[in-house]
Structures are given as structure tokens and as C-alpha cells.
């Protein structure tokens, strides 16, 4: 994305630097799903760097079925008024009008999310058309790069939202970081034809692949999402290469949300300090119950949405 990295004009807004820059400010932090202004205050007081405003956490979306859509703008705005930290909200995959609505009400980051029912089976939102920044989910590097090529300024693993089961997030973060390491090695040996083959496989411009290969990292911030339920889960994802964590159902579906939220924040900051992770994990009460992946039929898995 070197074309995007040049400084914006004096006074310019909605530039690539500003979109990716806000994600830089969130690094090392935890973004929490909240459904009410009261939840949002609890999250902010626990040290969340941002909140995701939605009507139902993924575990409830999963339980209730039906079509999951963008949340009521009034409810999102009440949350925006309740806290001073950035507020994110979700639109359906490909639903660019929901994205326009979220931008119009001043949401700080838009999550084009597989947790909601997809609106378009062919196209994701063209995120370059927006001044508001977007975060998108990915299961592997090609998917991450396709989203970045469409204008996503932040990437998160998809995991399997609403399960309290970390296994899918681990799979996705490992797939992304291992593929980046492989590219980085290719860059060292300057095998141009191999990079072109990768670009073809990923369906993205070779310049983007070359940039990732050279830097040995994505050109945007990479967070983990989907299945974090404990402080140890949060620290695990940071040690595996995530630069921060989204926590959805794991906090407000647990016995003591305020304490658990604070513990997950501390474990994310001090992820290399097992003594501290042990300390904050003590006596947190029951975690969300969670689901084993093999109990979820393929058709009900959320991570397969998007491509």
C-alpha cells in the first residue's frame, strides 16, 4: 500500500494514514462487545481501548438465529454518548448502505462482520469509498490481503464468534503469521516469480504481496477476535502475534464481567508475564460456558462467511 503511505494534503481527512493510525493507537489493548451504555461504562472503567456497540453479543446471535443486521443507530449513539473511548459498530458483509449509515452517525471504526448475516454473496464493501476506517475478519493471509486491497485499515482473525472456544482464532492467527513468515523468506531470496504466483493465488496486486514479504508483517494492525474467554486466552493470542484483542461474549456472558474485563486488559498488556497472568486469573468466577466446535454444524459456523 505504498501509494497510500504518502502524507495527505494539508487539512485532509479520512486518509490511509489516519485510518491505519487509529488502529495503531489501539494496539496492546482490548476492544469489548457491549450492548448497553452501562456495559460500555464497565468496559471503559476496566481499561478497554474501544467498544463494539451491538444489540446482541455473538453468543446470543448464535442462539436466537434469524437474520442478524446492523444495530439500531439510536442504541449505538447512546453508547457513543456514554464513553469517551472510540466506538465501533458492525455492518453486514457487502452492505455498503449500513456502512454509510454508521459513517453518518460518526462511528469511529466500522467492522464489516461475518457475525452478522451477509448481504452480498459476491462483493465486500469497497472500503476506499469511505472516510471512516474499517476492520475486517480473515482466516488466512490471502483473505486478509483481499480485505486490505479493498481498503480495510485493520485486520482481525475471525475465530468462531460466540463460542468461547479459542481454537479457531489460534488456527487463523497461526495461518496468517506463518504465511507472512513464508513470504518474508521468499523476499530474502528475491524470488520474484514466486511472489507473483502468490499474488495470483491471493487475487491481489503483487505490490501488496511484495510489501508484506519485505516488511515481514501486514501493512495494517492485526488483532485477534473470536473465542477469547479468559486472561490466558488473551495472552496466548498476543504471544502468537496478535497486536491486541477483541473480546465479545467472553466478558458479559461471564459471572463477573467487570473483574474479568479488567483481568483480560492486564493479561493483554503483560502477556509475557505468566506470574501476572496467574495473579489476574485468580477467583474470576465462572467463564462463559462455551461451545465445542464439533457440536456446531458447518452451516451454523460464522467464520465461513466472506471469502
Amino acid at each position, binding site marked *: 500500500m505504498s501509494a497510500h503511505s504518502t*502524507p*495527505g*494534503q*494539508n*487539512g*485532509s*481527512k*479520512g*486518509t490511509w*494514514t*489516519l485510518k491505519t*493510525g*487509529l488502529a*495503531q*493507537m*489501539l*494496539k*496492546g*489493548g482490548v476492544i469489548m462487545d457491549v450492548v448497553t451504555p452501562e456495559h460500555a461504562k464497565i468496559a*471503559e472503567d476496566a*481499561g*478497554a*481501548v*474501544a467498544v463494539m456497540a451491538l444489540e446482541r453479543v455473538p453468543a446470543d446471535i448464535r442462539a436466537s438465529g434469524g437474520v442478524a443486521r446492523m444495530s439500531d443507530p439510536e442504541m449505538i449513539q447512546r453508547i*457513543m454518548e456514554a464513553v*469517551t*473511548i*472510540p466506538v465501533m459498530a458492525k455492518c453486514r458483509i457487502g452492505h455498503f448502505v449500513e456502512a454509510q449509515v454508521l*459513517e453518518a452517525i*460518526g462511528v*469511529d*471504526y466500522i467492522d464489516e462482520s461475518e457475525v452478522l448475516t451477509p448481504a452480498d454473496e459476491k462483493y465486500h464493501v469497497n472500503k476506499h469509498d469511505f*472516510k*471512516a*476506517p474499517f476492520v475486517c475478519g480473515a482466516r488466512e493471509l490471502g483473505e486478509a490481503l483481499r480485505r486490505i486491497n479493498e481498503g480495510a485499515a485493520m485486520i482481525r482473525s475471525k475465530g468462531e464468534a460466540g463460542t468461547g472456544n479459542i481454537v479457531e482464532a489460534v488456527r487463523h492467527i497461526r495461518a496468517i503469521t506463518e504465511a507472512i513468515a513464508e513470504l518474508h523468506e521468499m523476499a530474502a531470496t528475491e524470488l520474484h516469480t514466486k511472489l507473483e504466483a502468490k499474488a495470483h493465488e491471493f487475487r491481489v496486486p503483487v505490490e501488496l504481496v511484495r510489501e508484506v514479504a519485505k516488511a515481514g508483517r501486514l501493512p495494517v494492525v492485526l488483532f485477534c477476535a473470536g473465542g477469547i474467554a479468559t486472561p490466558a486466552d488473551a495472552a496466548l493470542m498476543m504471544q502468537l502475534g496478535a497486536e491486541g484483542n477483541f473480546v465479545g461474549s467472553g466478558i458479559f456472558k461471564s459471572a463477573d464481567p467487570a473483574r474479568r474485563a479488567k483481568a483480560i*486488559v*492486564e493479561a493483554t*498488556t*503483560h502477556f509475557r508475564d505468566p506470574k501476572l497472568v496467574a495473579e489476574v486469573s485468580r477467583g474470576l468466577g465462572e467463564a462463559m460456558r462455551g461451545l465445542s466446535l464439533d457440536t456446531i454444524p458447518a452451516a451454523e459456523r460464522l467464520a465461513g462467511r466472506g471469502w
Partner: protein
Amino acid sequence: MPVAAGSSAAVLTARAGVLGLQGDFAEHLATLDRLGVEGVDVRRPAQLDEIDALIIPGGESTTIGKLAEQYGFIEKLRDRAAEGMPVWGTCAGAIFIAKEVPGHPHPLAALMDMTVDRNAFGRQVDSFEADLDVPDLGAKPFHAVFIRAPRITRVGPGVEVLAQLDGGMIVAARQGRLLATSFHPELTHDERFHRYFLSLGKG
């Protein structure tokens, strides 16, 4: 006090810490590395004794403030600043070191005599880039990145204003060895503010 853009790293601070509790500390560490200065990712108060200068990065000021308080950074940082250690706050960091932050719910280091308003320009869609005239850094404008930025609404006696936006809004200031910027020099490749900060300890 101004330092020429070409001055060698040898005259700059030897070991500079960056508070690594949350935010874009890695970008500050990368800039220090480019300048040939040893950077330290500071996550424990005891590390404040091992450094000659401290940068508090951009991030979420409520998060950084809470973690800093919880782990006992505030008192230790006040002691080190009183001993003359240079401290620079960028964006959230500027909020962290300000004496007055209206409406801020959490304890702050309260080092620098100024009032800082949070999110003073609005939400993310109002974030912007601007070319600033910073006489202390030379004639070339400094391209500044403002992200949900604060602004300095009052400076006390002894605080020097370093940069203002058109219309007079203060966005960079210095009080002795304390430096505050509303914007993020660590997100651009212009290292003049980092050099300027690293020279403060030698004054």
C-alpha cells in the same frame, strides 16, 4: 535549545524509554532505532531508573492512565521528572502529563503546567493531517497527524508554545525538559521532534 536536523546521535540521550503499557509504542521505538538511540519498552516502574528519557506514546489515555496507576508508575515518574529526566507525551501521552484535563475520570501524572482538552476536534471522521510551522525545528513545515487529538487550551508561565494551528490553537509546547504534542511524529518519517526531545536532557 533547537537542534540541527543533522546532529549526530552521539550527542543525544543514550537510553530512551517508551511507556509500553498500550498504544503505538513500537513506532516510537522504531524511530529511536533509526536515530541510533537504544530504546527501552517500559512496562514496569523499576525500569524508569534504567532510562535517561521517557516517551509516553499515543493510545487511549483512559487505558494508559489506569494501567499506570495500577502498577505504581505515577509516583515513580513524578520523582524521575523532578530529578530532571525529560518526558515527552504524544497525544494520549500529552493528556497523561498535563496538570489539568477537564472531565478526565482517572489519575494522571500532572507534570506539565497546561490544560489539555481530550478529543478536542471530534471523532475519528474529524481526524486530520496538517503542515505545521515549528520555528524551533527549522523552516521546513512539520507534517503532523492528528488522530482523535487533544489540544492545549491553557499554558502556565514557563511553558513555551512550539506550534499552533491556523487560528492559534496550541498543539505543541515545552516546559523545561517536558514536551507535549497533540499529534504523532512517530507515524511519519520526519524525526526532527524525536531529535529535539532527545536533546533536552543535554541542556
